[in-house]
């Protein structure tokens, strides 16, 4: 529940209201449900049956149990209506009613059995369905690729795959069985009652459809009101967390104590706003209870009065009285389970939305058999007039970009953030594909190559490499899980990682990642370098691995990096211009276009974009009266300072 970064306030309010409305015995169309009904929640989404095979079996089972349940309810009422008058009117002793009493015991045991079976089936199927949905969701998400994942905020997706899908428990274990009962039992009851006392049947039948009608009417009203209040509510709901997170800041400015009053005031405002919504939201429960209880009362009084004149028998009267509440019970409960279930249904809908997203289009090429990937030790990678626009953006990230990466060459890619450097790397890794133009490898279109084999020849190190919740050794041999420990050690040594890894108590078996030991950014970066060493690929894609590191760690990483680059083809994305100097050629990008290409010496010689970047990097500090960062070391220092 809740706690998803980025949309916290909103989720919290939702939780709060559903917590508030989803009181154990709370039917209703509350604000949450009302809000969701906008998105068109169906009681039973056919996609659920399509995507999770277990759900079909379970639905069949539930209908079966529901039918059995309805039969037993009728049986129980009939037996009681048989026993009671005989004992009451005829003073029948126990011995005369042993038959019906034994049958009644059997019926009661049967109902207990159904209760047990229903519950077990619900939980087991729910677990299976969740597992199937989760697997499908994750497999599909990975197939959609990192470019899509980045847009979808993987944190939210992770929450959906775990806690989100878990919310389906409420749907399967509570809502669905009640929904089936709510459809079967009233019909069965009516069919039974109409044969004995049609007047009562009419009473029950007339009031039954009024329930959903009134609930819908109130639901619509609530929905309008809630939507108006929604932003107020979510601001108020998130306030406490905001204040608690800002405590250090508040204390520095001596404002912390004053905020206690604000916490009380805003929580009270939140209470008042929420209560205003709840007053209306609970109305639908009120109507539900009123109608169903009044129906029973009407039926009871009517049969009672007709019994006085002998127009109905005691048997009939009892049967009707026993069955009338049974017709309304599942309807009431299905309302009560509505909220718990809707959370799961909403989660399922989001899962389906992901499953129905189609990935980067390979259909055009999948018809042809994939070509063999050329050996990158010899083949040139060319980007040919490539256009690329990220989905939902207006401006292309890459416009008419062409460049070649020759075997053994070291190419530096420079430009401000947003120039298109990362988009280009993403294309080369096959995470995205060009909308126009193409990338070729030794003359073959990258689109025709099997991505797995293509990536096998690449080693990629990003600015913030990800470490997995596994041992350091497993993190290093990420690409080749079969590698022995000696090779892992060797890679770590080359990456300047061996020293700190071996000083850890469990050395290469140390678990890192979320639950493991904390590593500094520089240490993580060196593990990522070791990963690339072990991969031993002919082409390196490096997204400036030393950015965001303090000087000392950066130096250690840089040292390993130099060793890694030796003898390989390198595409190096550069943020600190100094690093570009070691490259064979520099490609300057700006606003998605390649604006300058050449050797460092060639670019220095002209007053082009490169020189402009170089000039811009210095003086912004110089203006403060500093000599500039370059002062102590460089030949250009004198020009840049001042």
């Amino acid at each position, binding site marked *: 529940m809740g*706690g998803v970064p*980025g949309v916290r306030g909103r989720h919290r309010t939702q939780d*709060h209201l559903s917590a508030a409305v989803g009181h154990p015995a709370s039917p209703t169309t509350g604000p949450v449900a009302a809000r969701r009904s906008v998105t068109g929640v169906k009681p039973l989404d056919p996609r659920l049956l399509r995507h999770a095979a277990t759900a079909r079996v379970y639905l069949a089972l539930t209908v079966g149990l529901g039918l059995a349940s309805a039969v037993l309810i009728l049986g129980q009422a009939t037996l009681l209506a048989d*026993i*009671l*008058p005989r*004992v009451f009117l005829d003073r029948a002793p126990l011995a005369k009613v042993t038959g019906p009493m034994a049958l*009644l015991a059997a019926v009661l*045991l049967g109902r*207990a*059995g159904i209760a*047990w079976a*229903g*519950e*077990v089936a619900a*939980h*087991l199927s729910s677990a299976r369905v969740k*597992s199937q949905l*989760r*697997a499908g969701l994750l497999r599909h998400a990975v197939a959609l690729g990192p470019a899509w*994942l980045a847009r979808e905020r*993987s*944190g939210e997706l*992770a929450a959906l795959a775990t806690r989100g899908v878990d919310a389906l428990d409420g749907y399967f274990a509570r809502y669905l069985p009640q929904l089936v009962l709510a459809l079967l039992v009233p019909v069965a009851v009516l069919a039974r009652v109409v044969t004995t006392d049609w007047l009562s049947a009419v009473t029950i039948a007339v009031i039954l459809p009024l329930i959903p009608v009134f609930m819908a009417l109130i639901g619509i009203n609530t929905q309008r009101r809630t939507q108006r209040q929604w932003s107020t509510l979510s601001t108020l709901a998130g*306030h406490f967390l905001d204040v*608690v997170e800002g*405590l250090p*800041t508040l204390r*520095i*400015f001596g404002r912390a104590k004053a905020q206690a009053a604000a*916490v*009380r005031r805003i*929580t009270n405002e939140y*209470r008042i706003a*929420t*209560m205003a919504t709840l007053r209306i939201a609970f*109305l639908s429960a009120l109507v539900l209870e*009123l109608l169903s*209880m009044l129906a029973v009362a009407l039926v009871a*009084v009517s049969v009672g009065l007709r019994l*006085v004149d002998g127009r109905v028998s005691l048997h009939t*009267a009892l049967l009707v009285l026993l069955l009338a*509440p049974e017709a309304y019970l599942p309807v009431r409960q299905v309302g009560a389970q509505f909220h718990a279930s809707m959370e799961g249904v909403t989660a399922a809908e989001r899962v389906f939305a992901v499953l129905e997203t189609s990935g980067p289009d390979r259909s055009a090429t999948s018809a042809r058999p994939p070509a063999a990937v050329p050996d990158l030790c010899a083949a040139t990678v060319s980007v040919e007039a490539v256009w690329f626009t990220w989905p939902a953006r207006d401006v292309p990230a890459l416009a008419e970009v062409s460049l070649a990466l020759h075997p053994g060459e070291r190419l530096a890619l420079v430009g401000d*953030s947003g120039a298109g450097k990362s988009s280009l790397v993403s294309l080369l*890794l096959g995470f995205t594909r060009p909308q126009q133009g193409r990338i070729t490898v030794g003359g073959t279109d990258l689109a025709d190559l099997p991505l797995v084999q293509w*990536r096998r020849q690449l080693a*990629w190190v990003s600015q913030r490499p990800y470490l997995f919740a596994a041992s350091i050794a497993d993190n290093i041999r990420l690409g080749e899980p079969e590698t022995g420990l000696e090779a892992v050690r060797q890679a770590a040594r080359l990456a300047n990682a061996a020293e700190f890894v071996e000083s850890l108590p469990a050395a290469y078996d140390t678990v890192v990642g*979320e639950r493991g030991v904390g590593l*500094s950014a520089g240490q993580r970066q060196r593990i990522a370098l070791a990963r690339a060493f072990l991969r031993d690929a002919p082409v390196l894609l490096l997204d400036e691995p*030393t*950015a965001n590191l*303090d000087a000392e760690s*950066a130096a250690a990483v840089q040292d390993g990096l130099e060793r890694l680059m030796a003898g390989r083809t390198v595409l190096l994305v550069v943020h600190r211009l100094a690093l570009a100097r070691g490259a064979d050629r520099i490609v300057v990008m700006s606003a998605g276009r390649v604006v300058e290409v050449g050797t460092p010496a060639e670019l220095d010689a002209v007053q082009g974009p490169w020189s402009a970047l170089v000039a*811009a990097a210095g003086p*912004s500090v110089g203006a403060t009266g*500093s000599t500039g*960062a*370059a002062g102590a*070391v*460089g030949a250009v220092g004198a020009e840049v300072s001042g």
Partner: protein
Amino acid sequence: MWRLLRLARPQLGRLALSVVAGAAAVASSVGLMAVSAWLISRAAQHPPVLDLAVAVVAIRTFGIGRGIFRYAERLISHDAAFRVLADLRVRVYTRLEPLAPAGLADFRSGDLLSRLVADVDALQDLFLRVLPPPLIAAIVGGSAVVLAWALLPGAGAVLAATLLLAGVAVPALTTRSGRRASARVAAARGELSMHVVDLLHGAPELLAYGAADTQLDRVARSDAELTGLSRSTALTTGLGAGLGSVAAGLALWGTLRVAVPAVSAGSLDGVWLAVLVLTALAVFEVVAPLPVAAQQLERVRRAAGRVFGVLDAPAPVNDPARPRPVPAGTPVVTLEAARLRYASDAACALDGVDLRLEPGRRIAVVGPSGAGKTTLALVLLRFVELDGGRATLAGHDLRDYAQDDVRRVIGACLQDAHLFDTTVRENIRLAQPDATDEQLTDAAERAELGPWIASLPAGWDTRVGERGAQVSGGQRQRLALARALLADPPVLLLDEPTANLDSITEQALMGSLLRATEGRTTLLITHRLVGLDAVDEVVVLDRGRVVQRGRHADLVRSAGLYRRLWELEAGLTAVD
């Protein structure tokens, strides 16, 4: 749990009222069935219709009463729970306040803090979902037993026994096995979630290194384990449901078993037979919510444990009994052989640090990460106490002053300053709530925010979003700087103002900072050596010790850590 109840004392009246209304609601439906049973039984004896008038009225009243009482119960209980929540939040807040930030170090990750806040909110469930059901069950169930007993003691005994079975034994059983399983389920769930997060966050690496399938298998394995565990949970919940149903059946059947002979023997008037049976049927509604209430109780108990665990932590710093008034003007601030370690087995965060900040001077504290720079800031702001040596302000130990007074003199702009989910104006004004618009504009100008604010859709009244999500890293730090400048403290402390910024933004911000603090007593803490020739003294920290100090120009010339850091950094940032 008792502590929680004590906190709710002001709302006990409302809570009691909601329980009474809830009991009345359930009693209405039991009463409806019982009176209807009597009505029908009596009617079968063909009495004058007038004899039934009272019962008819009662039935109609019960029919209406249930819905209305239920509505009242829910409104009253929610209102009371929200009122308790307001008290709880204030109580938690006032206890958290002295703990921040040092006492909340374990909560540095925002997720844990939001968990804590969610826990506080979860506590109100005690009053909504945990306490009322058993109380209502006791009231209504108890009354039904007494009435049944009055008619036929045997029936009362049957009802009492079966209600206890369904209302006490079954929830106890399911809760106990639930508790046993929950630790294993939580562990499996955590494992699964960890692998899922790895899969999604690490997807680029996994795909680039062809390891996606391996990770998907890992997810599938922990998923299978979790699904396996839920099988045993399913069996227990099923058992609970089955037993509950058995108890209700036993009540019905048992009542018949004792009542039938009583009627034929004449010891019970037959009119009451159906009343007893239908009461036994209807009253089991009261025990239905109890298993859920028991589960909620577990949840509330765990949340309360976590919340009180935080609240009971000792405050890292306490104010003196009689704080010394802070002097007017700009005082001298010093550290003398300052020593501090966070845990007895940890290395010293500060190990004999001396520092002297004279009025009007600017000192920079530099050093690699982990050198003790941030600790030094926390000490000067009196967020933590030294273990040895002392910190002084105007010649007196910092401990002699009240914390708030110290922070009035030494203001700060800390790393990752929090932006509140409100407007730009309110975020800056926080530092000085009665600031005039002129003062605000002036502070913003000095932090070089003017053009940015002018470019915003609603200018000063633009909201910054949750955690300042709508604001870029550079502007965020400038906002924090403007805030600190508005507070206008005699001594200004800036902790890593340029952390997590790209180098171009960093250089621009550093320029703004240095211009804005010219002539102001400033302590600048940073791990990047940008623009430090503008400050009066540079103090180089390494592993809690001062290893070098002096002016930038001299430090660069002499061998040592500073020169090494400088060269490393210049090698990376300079244009050769």
